[in-house]
């Protein structure tokens, strides 16, 4: 897991999965590095093979933090399976999904 942060954003890369086994740690790392004025958390999903409901719940929690600053979570290049999952759960309506 690698993070690059500035005042307004946090970029997370190198994640292979986001599931019950690592989502708590992921959330902790993000909150630790996120500035108070952060308005965007972008997760590079090109390396993410698997996300489960715990992982998605974590992203929803981060989204709620950002919403205070009118911010958002961006998922960059998720796999077709993850896209399908987001659609199934209507989470593509609250996260920004970029190709």
């Amino acid at each position: 897991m690698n993070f690059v942060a500035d005042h307004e954003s946090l970029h997370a890369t190198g994640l292979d999965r986001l599931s019950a086994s690592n989502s708590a740690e992921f959330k902790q790392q993000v909150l630790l590095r996120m500035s108070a004025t952060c308005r965007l958390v972008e997760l590079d999903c090109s390396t993410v093979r698997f996300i489960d409901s715990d992982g998605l719940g974590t992203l929803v929690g981060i989204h709620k933090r950002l919403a205070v600053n009118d911010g958002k979570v961006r998922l960059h290049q998720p796999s077709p399976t993850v896209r399908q999952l987001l659609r199934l759960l209507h989470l593509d309506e609250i996260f920004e999904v970029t190709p």
Partner: protein
Amino acid sequence: MSAEAVSAARREFRTSLRLEITCEFAAVRAAVLEVRAWLAERGLPEADLSAWELALAEAVNNAVKYSKANARQLPVGIEISLGERDVEARITDHTAGFDWPEEVDLPDADSESGRGLFLIKSLTDYSTYLRHTGENILVLRRARTAPAKTNLPDVCQLQNRLTDAEMALTDMTAELSSSYESLVALFRYSSELGAHADLKDFSQRLLKDLMQIAEADYAVLRLVSTDGNKLQTLLILPGDSNVQLDAVDMADALASVEAAAARNCEDIWFGPEEPLGKHDPLRAVMPTGNGICHAFFVANQPVGTATLGRQRADKPFTAAQLSLLHTFVDFLAIQIVNARLLDERTAARVTRRELEIAADIQRSLLPSTIPACLPFEVAAACQSALQVGGDFYDIIPAADGALLLVIADVMGKGVPAALFAAVLRSTIRSMPQLFDQPGELLATANRTLFPDLSRVDMFITAQIAYLNPRRQKIISANAGHCPMLVCQRKTAVATAVSESGFPLGIEPMTRYAQVETDLPPDAAVLLYTDGLSETRNAGGDMLGEEKLLPMFAQAIMQTSDALAGKEFLLGSLDDYSNHQPLLDDHTLILIRHLA
């Protein structure tokens, strides 16, 4: 999924993977990946792999997340079973359990939890949660996605197929090894065959072993009745239960899984998901739990059903245990059919013995010597057909050097006919005072025998002739028997004496006319049974009295004594039948005036 589809899906060959993981999230991911790889090796497409990866992760995560504090040291069980049509997963947890919802709504978009169950429901076709004290089982099932159709399999597909074949071989080898115990049992039974003739005892020991190996608590064995309409109980195990099961009507396939299995030629599983019908008789033995019913057949004919049951509802029988049931019961079916064949052979042997007895009786009735009655000479024969009939003849010395000649045919075959012949012989022999009045003799014999004959719907045809050498006459009376034939050598013509009354045993008060026939020198008389006149030639034509008359005349013309005449006549009959075995007894008495 319909009940038929469920049972059909379970009858197929399934291969399975069983894992146990420690109760922690870190172990879940590795287990899910192992399952994914196992399914991938067996050719499941990516869509199915992704679906199972996520559904399993959700399910096993829940098993870890909600595990009771005092049960964290217990493993979480994962069992995957792959069939031709679907994949089934069973996750065993040690949580407090919860009521599995019929429907799960998607939580609000900003909710951080509550999506797991929704995902499980969305990704599977069937799910149920079996709750039990201490542990629960989540059962998930998803139909396999049909593979995309391509004309030429690529290298990857071929490799997958090869892998499948190798895995199947490995599975079969493993199953063979695990069948060692059953093989040993079956060999033991084979060696005991013959030593134990009692089918029930044999079945009981076989079923007990099967129950132990297949971990069953109950077993019921039923056999199809000989008329094929019912399933009759042979065994209920354990034997100490006092339950009685009435026979099941084979037509009652709706109420009884046993009848349904036998009629539809299928294995039927029952349990919490597919409970026994309200009126299924098996409920008396297996009120709860689950089981399998297997119908067994020999030469496409249902022989019976065997049902195994388990008290625990959450532990259904596996495909391997069903195979075990098949092996044992099919072995038993062969023994049952063999036992029935043995019974039939025994019955045939009894029948053969009965015929031998009848033949002995018939032989014992015939006179060993023929008394002289000059100037007449008498010859007689009784040739038995393959199936012993009721023919007999008797030649009894009478007063003044006369002879009483009796020839009779008891309707029917075998021992009963032979016994009535014996009774008739004794009855006649007990009335020497009536020997010179054959008509009265027949009437008295009829009155005596009528009650016994009519009770068993039998009758006897008989001809009695009193040969008086002094007056050179024969006085005859006939009870429905073939007419006496008389031949005069000088005319070379034979004629029939056709006067006749009812056979014995038809009417109690029948009167029989007596006919007196002169027997001048060179005259000959033939008394015979219908076996002679009903002799058939190669074309199937019956000889009949018309052709017997000239045949008899020729025998007299060509020979000079009774014995030679008899042999000539029998030879002519044999020629006529083209030397075929007799269809009926050939019995005759030939009398010749030698002077």
